[in-house]
């Protein structure tokens, strides 16, 4: 039958309806793709986009010969998602397959060397982020992930982390410092140079698929990580090693509470070695709190007789005395200001040089009295004993460095000057004392001690360099020469520190044996024994400070305890540094020596 008009009309009606529907759909598309475009697009971008962190590797710490003292390595943190493991097992249970949680615990236990029981407990937690183990080596983490993939187990991932490694263990630990668990430096170089060392984390905008994996083709703009800079120290690993070995031997022998050794270069103020005992291994997780303190910069001690160098040098500088002037030493018992001052053995007349050689307290006190309070106080400030040795500026202030204690002049009592002259009623750090000695050694310039030589960025270009800095002149050249002459006598056969002599080298130095305050009383039980010396005396290359706090044994004076350590370190370091041997014996100022009883004195 032929289609009629009715048929056509009915088709047209339906066709119109369908076309209307298509137009409506077209309008709907316009609404979605034009009107709501901005809102929907931003929703989508939020859903896909992510900012990934590109971690920067902390820079290494190097010694002056660029030996690695500390470096960072990439490690992984193994993280467990117990929820995924449970979900997978629920699915397996549904499909009638064996459950795998136990396998998971076993594999994790094997690979991470952890007790399986602990992992089982963690698998029962309800959070989705359970840290299984920190600081897993990259290799182990990769093996673990491969094993799990082979076994079709899900729910374990490895996050990026880094770990600080100190290849030399405890060597130089107080200078280097250590890291806490948040990867920030806690002491020493790690703290002072943290900003330079840590570098700058980078980032990258990425897009992820629904499974959270990056869609690499849509990788967006990024900012690469800038790895941390290398910090090059003035310290020398070899010298440090020698110093610490000798220190350890002595510590074994004398069992002091604390011990400090510092090796410096007088001409520049560079610290070549710095160590204190007790010490710690910065690699270790737990450290004894008492061992963390860098006693060389943060412990204040009354220096004792080593301080006489300041008294005598200042007097020489002010031309108040000459080396050959004689001082009447009251036969070892000097009444001044209503208090007796004694020597360790009674001396009659001594030249100024001999006052140092024999370490006469009375002699030093009398020289100070000749100068007067104001000059003496001025000298102490001049030598920087009330300042922080490394300075106060942010960026140079060494962590833990403290100011010495120099009492205000107005609070001095009449007897003070006689006590200050021999290193009591004043407290200084070992580094300040060593630095004062360096100033005399280099001809009178008080230097700023240096630990850091330069900072080098990841491309090897030097971004910061530190140069020797003269703080001020403390004595003139002549006074420095004269005091060196006198100090050479200290290590002569007749001096207090004969054991410090190094054959073939002209050594100058000064012993110190300070009484310690015990329960508010100076007694004869506990001493701080020290020795500071430098050599070769005519052109000093090295200044070595050795200090023992409360050494045990029969003979505990600085000349007996610290001087041999100075000698041992000096011999080895001189050989390492190829120091030329100078004339065998120094010229000597002749002097008559008053026989003395064996009466134990206060100072030596």
């Amino acid at each position, binding site marked *: 039958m032929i289609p009629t008009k009715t048929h056509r009309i009915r*088709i047209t009606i339906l066709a119109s309806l369908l076309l209307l529907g298509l137009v409506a759909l077209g309008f709907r598309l316009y609404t979605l793709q034009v009107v709501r475009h901005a809102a929907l697009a931003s929703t989508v971008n939020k859903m896909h986009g992510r900012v990934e962190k590109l971690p920067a590797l902390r820079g290494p710490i190097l010694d002056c010969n660029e030996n690695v003292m500390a470096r960072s390595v990439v490690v992984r943190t193994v993280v467990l998602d117990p929820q995924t493991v449970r979900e997978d097992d629920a699915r397996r249970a549904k499909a009638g397959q064996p459950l795998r949680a136990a396998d998971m615990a076993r594999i994790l236990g094997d690979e991470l060397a952890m007790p399986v029981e602990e992992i089982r407990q963690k698998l029962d937690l309800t959070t989705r982020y359970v840290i299984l183990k920190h600081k897993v080596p990259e290799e182990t983490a990769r093996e673990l992930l491969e094993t799990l993939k082979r076994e079709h187990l899900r729910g374990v991932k490895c996050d990026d982390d880094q770990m600080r490694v100190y290849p030399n263990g405890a060597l130089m630990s107080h200078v280097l410092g250590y890291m806490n668990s948040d990867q920030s430096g806690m002491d020493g170089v790690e703290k002072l140079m943290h900003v330079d060392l840590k570098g700058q984390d980078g980032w990258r905008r990425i897009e992820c698929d629904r499974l959270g994996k990056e869609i690499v083709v849509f990788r967006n703009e990024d900012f690469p990580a800038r790895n941390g800079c290398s910090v090059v120290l003035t310290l020398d690993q070899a010298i440090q090693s020698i110093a610490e070995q000798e220190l350890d031997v002595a510590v074994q022998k004398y069992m002091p509470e604390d011990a400090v050794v510092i090796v410096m270069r007088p001409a520049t103020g560079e610290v070549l070695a710095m160590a204190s005992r007790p010490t710690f291994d910065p690699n270790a997780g737990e450290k004894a709190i008492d061992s963390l303190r860098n006693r060389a910069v943060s412990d204040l001690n009354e220096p004792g007789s080593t301080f006489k160098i300041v008294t005598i040098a200042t007097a020489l500088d002010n031309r108040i005395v000459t080396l050959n002037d004689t001082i009447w030493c009251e036969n070892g018992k000097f009444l001044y200001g209503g208090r007796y001052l004694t020597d360790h053995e009674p001396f009659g007349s001594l030249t100024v040089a001999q006052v140092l050689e024999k370490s006469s307290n009375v002699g030093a006190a009398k020289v100070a009295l000749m100068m007067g309070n104001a000059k003496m106080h001025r000298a102490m400030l001049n030598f920087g004993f009330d300042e922080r040795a490394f300075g106060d500026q942010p960026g140079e202030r060494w962590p833990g460095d403290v100011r010495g204690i120099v009492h205000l002049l107005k609070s001095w009592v009449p007897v003070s000057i006689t006590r200050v002259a021999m290193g009591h009623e004043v407290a200084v750090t070992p580094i300040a004392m060593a630095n004062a000695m360096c100033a005399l050694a280099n001809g009178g310039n008080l230097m700023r001690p240096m630990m850091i030589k330069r900072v080098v960025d990841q491309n090897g270009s030097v971004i910061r360099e530190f140069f020797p800095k003269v703080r001020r002149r403390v004595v003139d050249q002549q006074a420095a020469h004269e005091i060196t002459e006198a100090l050479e006598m200290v290590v002569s056969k007749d001096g207090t520190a004969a054991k410090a002599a190094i054959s073939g080298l002209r050594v100058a130095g000064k012993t110190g044996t300070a009484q310690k305050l015990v329960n508010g009383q100076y007694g004869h039980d506990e001493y701080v024994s020290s020795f500071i010396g430098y050599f070769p005396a005519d052109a000093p290359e090295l200044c070595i400070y050795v200090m023992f706090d409360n050494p045990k044994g029969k003979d505990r004076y600085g000349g007996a305890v610290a001087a041999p350590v100075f000698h041992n370190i000096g011999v080895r370091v001189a050989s390492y540094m190829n120091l030329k041997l100078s004339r065998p014996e120094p010229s000597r100022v002749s002097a008559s020596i008053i026989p003395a009883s064996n009466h134990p004195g206060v100072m030596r």
Partner: protein
Amino acid sequence: MKSMNRYVAVIMVIAVLALTGLGLVMISSTTAPLADYSGQLKRQIIWFAAGLVAFGIVGWVDYKSWRPYVWPIFGLSLLLLCLVFVPGIGSHVKGSSRWLKVFGFKVQPSEFLRLAVVLLLAHGLAKQQPKIREWKWGFVWPLGVIAVPLLMLRMEPDFGTMALLAATTLTMMFVAGSRIWPVIATGGMGMTGLAMMMWLVPERRARFLAFLDPEKNKDGKFYQVWQGILAFGSGGTDGLGLGNSRQKMFYLPESTTDCIFPIIGEELGLYATLAVVIAFAVILICGLWIAMQSRDSHGMLLGFGLMFGLCLQAMVNIGTVTGSIPPKGMPLPFVSYGGSNLLISYVAIGFLVSVHRESLRTKRFSGGMPIDDETPRF
């Protein structure tokens, strides 16, 4: 107008080929991130080739020559539909059995059923044209024919195909000239029944209500539609560029089949999506033009039924992915990945071309005079 008439089939076929080409490109783009990145594309090309062959045969052969076979074809498609319930042959996906696995290809028998029903109804309604206003032939017979397939689809269950089949049947009855009011009443009853079913089953009701506010339900039942809407929105006017879809990275499920249209929107933008809608409008207009130009009511009904089914399917798909209607899973004809749908769609186009050829031929031979169904052919 007369010269237009000659090219109407050509225009339609060009639009169809353009849609298929777009589909192949988009399948290639969407499957790129998958491990088996070329598998779907290869299979789709094979089905496309098969579709072209079927199109050629059906288009070449006079559509009237299939008339003796409409009942066997109907029976065969019912048999195929039964097979989805046979374990081992039929496969069970997401709680319904809709697929047959044949030589590694997945086949959806309901697609064949829709074709068979249109063939059968066109044949029957044309044959009964003089008695079409009688209850028996104009109303009871066509509804009786689809009763069994509807029941079987209910068992699968496949409500989408059910609704499509019922809608096609009712509109064909309407076009064939049965009484208007019973048809409208039946349609209304069917819709009410559907609404009741939807309202009474809480899960379906929830799904319907979710459709009203896709954003609120974006993590649950409406996840897929919401992701589709996001894809359209993020594409904007110009699109992100071919291959740059983010939503295909496992955010939008079924992104090569039912949800290929949002990916088109995301990668190619509003211009492409509107072009697709316009292409379907062109196919619809051309197809119905052909149907109306047919010199016999069989050709007209066949052409209309096939074209209506095709277009409705496209509209349901586009309506679903844009969140305009309650979600119903249907492929987008010619574009979506899916072999049986592509094949059947090409067969439908083949029938329309055949109807067109016949109408041109009869016009030529009869000088424009109408030829009755009963006019003997040689």
